[in-house]
């Protein structure tokens, strides 16, 4: 009989769900190959359907999105219990992702930002006999593996079709890789970059530009043009889609296995190739990097050493 | 700030024993078209017994004067009396090295920005030897003089001149055609307050200074400090009484001789207030006969 698989979506944009559909006709093969028992975004299953399954009944659960609410946490735990394998699918599940930038603030401030003067809704809401409880919003956003043990990681925002289909191949009919493995190559993406040969040997930057402020030469190394490109620090496997679109790498595929803090390492490397021996000049050059955290931790703040902004 | 207005802190001396210093200073600055605005409601500089009894009190006194300088909007504060100059400087120096003494919110530390100046150094730096040379209005027909700097304007917190071998007064007088002698005792003690406490020691120090100046062929001593001036000037008669030795050495302020050379009105130079060597002074400082001199 076909292996049962589940897809679930925590704090994320939905792009990862799209990524599965991006398999195009591949999806049909997939549908034939597996028995999808849970996929809220596409099929009408309920939480209780999962609860009713036996523990370990699901072969693989693909969970995308970060964990930032009590409900997401409960679902993650539920799926962990019911599944043999859990795959952190996409940058948010792997590192916290874009939602992870909320770790620069707190739940209270986030809600205040959203609801303004109006009070945020109460967690419990009663109406003629019925009670509706809203999930609690955590102060911090977490990568999936801070909530439950994770077997494999699939990087990307979103994961590229190639990565996804390769993933299904290994998980469904390949022999399983090392537990904890990231299902993508373990070198940086510069290696795959179509513009790699245009990077000069002795790169020295004397200013930085923001993408929207400069016309990027579509032939030349983007970093060499003074636009922060994180290709050198980012895991390969994305197929250089951003570069193809003449945009710099923003690091969604995350670190290689030899980096411990993605943003820290990326910053360390980038800061090494600027000009200037005087503080004033150096600071002037870095003015072009208006938002260091947003630049270097765009997808990985919750999985960084510091995890979140310090509590004031 | 050539033609700007300097804040002016007279201190007690320039209103008392050293009033000739104030008169000649004002006259000289007028002659050079330099503005001088006396600080309003100034108080004791703290150099007196305060400094030896409780430095903090002394600093507080100086600090008030400096604060008011800022209030008055002056960047520079001219303190002609060496003791005042030193006390104000020392206060700033201590604020630099021990910010804690500023106490409170540390707002007091801003008074370090006030530039405490001595007129000798103002003339040398802001006016300059060249301009003095050009401004000379009267030919010197007096004798050679010994430039005497005393101790406080040259060390330890001062920027007036080289601490062990000051030369600026010599250069300025030279530019004004006033011949000077090489005076080895230019920074030696004038007796200070010893003349009032251990009198005979103080007077002996005075005697040494006068004697050596005469030996070097000087016919007058020129000073930058009211206490030096007073000590050297006032005890010559006593020396004559005790040792029978007639010195009759005029002891003048550099502002008096420079003021004369640069054409300040003679009556306003306070020359009449001198005690010793009055005859010489009378000869030297006659109004220059109407010579067409530029």
């Amino acid at each position, binding site marked *: 009989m076909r292996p049962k698989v589940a897809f679930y979506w925590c704090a994320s944009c939905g792009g990862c769900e799209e990524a599965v559909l991006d398999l195009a006709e591949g999806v049909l093969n997939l549908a034939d190959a597996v028995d999808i028992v849970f996929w809220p975004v596409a099929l009408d299953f309920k939480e209780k359907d999962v609860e009713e399954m036996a523990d370990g009944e699901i072969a693989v659960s693909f969970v995308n999105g970060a964990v930032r609410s009590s409900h997401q946490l409960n679902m993650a735990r539920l799926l962990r219990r019911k599944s043999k394998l859990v795959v952190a699918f996409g940058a948010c599940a792997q590192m916290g992702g874009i939602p992870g930038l909320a770790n620069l603030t707190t739940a209270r401030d986030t809600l205040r930002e959203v609801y303004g003067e109006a009070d945020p809704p109460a967690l419990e809401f009663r109406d003629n006999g019925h009670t509706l409880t809203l999930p609690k919003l955590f102060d911090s956003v977490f990568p999936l593996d801070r909530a439950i043990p994770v077997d494999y990681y699939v990087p990307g925002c979103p994961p590229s079709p190639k990565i996804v289909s390769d993933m299904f191949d290994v998980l469904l009919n390949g022999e399983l890789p090392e537990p904890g493995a990231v299902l993508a190559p373990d070198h940086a993406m510069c290696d795959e970059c179509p513009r790699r040969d245009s990077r000069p040997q002795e790169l020295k930057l004397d200013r930085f530009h923001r993408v929207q402020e400069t016309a990027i030469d579509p032939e030349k190394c983007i970093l060499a043009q003074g636009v922060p490109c994180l290709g050198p620090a980012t895991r390969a496997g994305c197929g250089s889609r951003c570069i193809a679109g003449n945009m710099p790498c923003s690091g969604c595929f995350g670190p290689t296995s030899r980096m411990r803090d993605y943003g820290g390492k990326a910053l360390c490397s980038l800061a*090494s190739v600027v000009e200037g021996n005087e*503080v004033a000049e150096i600071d002037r050059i870095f003015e072009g990097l208006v938002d260091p955290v947003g630049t270097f931790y765009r997808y990985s703040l919750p999985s960084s050493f510091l995890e979140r902004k310090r509590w004031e | 700030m050539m033609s700007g207005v300097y804040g002016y802190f007279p201190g007690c001396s320039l209103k008392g024993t050293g009033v000739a210093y104030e008169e000649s200073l004002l006259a000289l600055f007028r002659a050079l078209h330099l503005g001088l605005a006396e600080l309003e409601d100034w108080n004791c500089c703290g150099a007196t017994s305060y400094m030896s009894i409780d430095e903090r009190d002394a600093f507080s006194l100086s600090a008030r004067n400096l604060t008011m300088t800022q209030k008055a909007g002056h960047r520079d504060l001219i303190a002609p009396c060496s003791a005042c100059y030193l006390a104000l400087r020392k206060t700033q120096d201590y604020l630099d090295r021990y910010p804690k003494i500023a106490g409170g919110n540390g707002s007091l530390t801003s008074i370090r920005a006030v530039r405490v100046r001595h007129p000798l150094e103002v003339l040398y730096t802001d006016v300059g030897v060249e301009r003095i040379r050009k401004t000379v209005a009267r030919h010197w027909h007096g004798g050679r003089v010994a430039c005497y700097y005393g101790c406080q304007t040259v060390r330890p917190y001062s920027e007036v001149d080289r601490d062990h071998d000051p030369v600026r007064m010599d250069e300025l007088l030279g530019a004004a055609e006033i011949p000077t002698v090489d005076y080895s005792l230019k920074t030696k003690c004038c007796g200070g307050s010893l003349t009032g406490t251990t009198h005979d020691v103080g007077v002996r120090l005075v005697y040494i200074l006068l004697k050596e100046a005469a030996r070097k062929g000087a016919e007058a001593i020129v000073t930058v400090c009211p206490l030096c001036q007073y000590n050297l000037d006032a005890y010559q008669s006593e020396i004559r009484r005790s040792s029978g030795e007639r010195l009759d050495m005029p002891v003048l302020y550099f502002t008096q001789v420079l003021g004369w050379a640069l054409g300040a009105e003679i009556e306003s130079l306070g020359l009449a207030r001198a005690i010793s060597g009055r005859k010489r002074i009378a000869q030297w400082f006659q109004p220059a006969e109407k010579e067409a001199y530029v």
Partner: protein
Amino acid sequence: MPEPFEPKIVAFFCNWCTYLAADLAGTSRIKYCPNAEVVRVMCSGRVDVQFVLKAFAKGADGVLIGGCHPGDCHYQEGNYKALRRYRLLRRLIRQMGIEDERLRLEWISAAEGDRVRAVINDMVETLKRLGPLQKSEEERAHLLEVA
């Protein structure tokens, strides 16, 4: 009563200047605060930004990087690399709510034993004023609670 806050400093000293200066302080028996533990690297240029972040994450209240004076680097220009990384890292940790004073880069030559004392003592004083980088364990736990 609770014992007074003793800040913890992780110090990355370069082998040729600052580490030797610390040795000199020792042979000169110069006394200074015991709050800094030194990790020796060959050159301040070896100090990876990750090291600094790790130290903060582990609970350092301050991190000190010591290198040779500009122009004096034993490896010619490693200290300039350190300086460039430091200037950008400073802005990053500021965004993360960590005060500038908690991260210091100091040039201390092999001859400046007393400067080791001055810098470390001064940093300890500053950190005592700033207080602990991480609030109580409970608070941090609450902040990073997973339900």
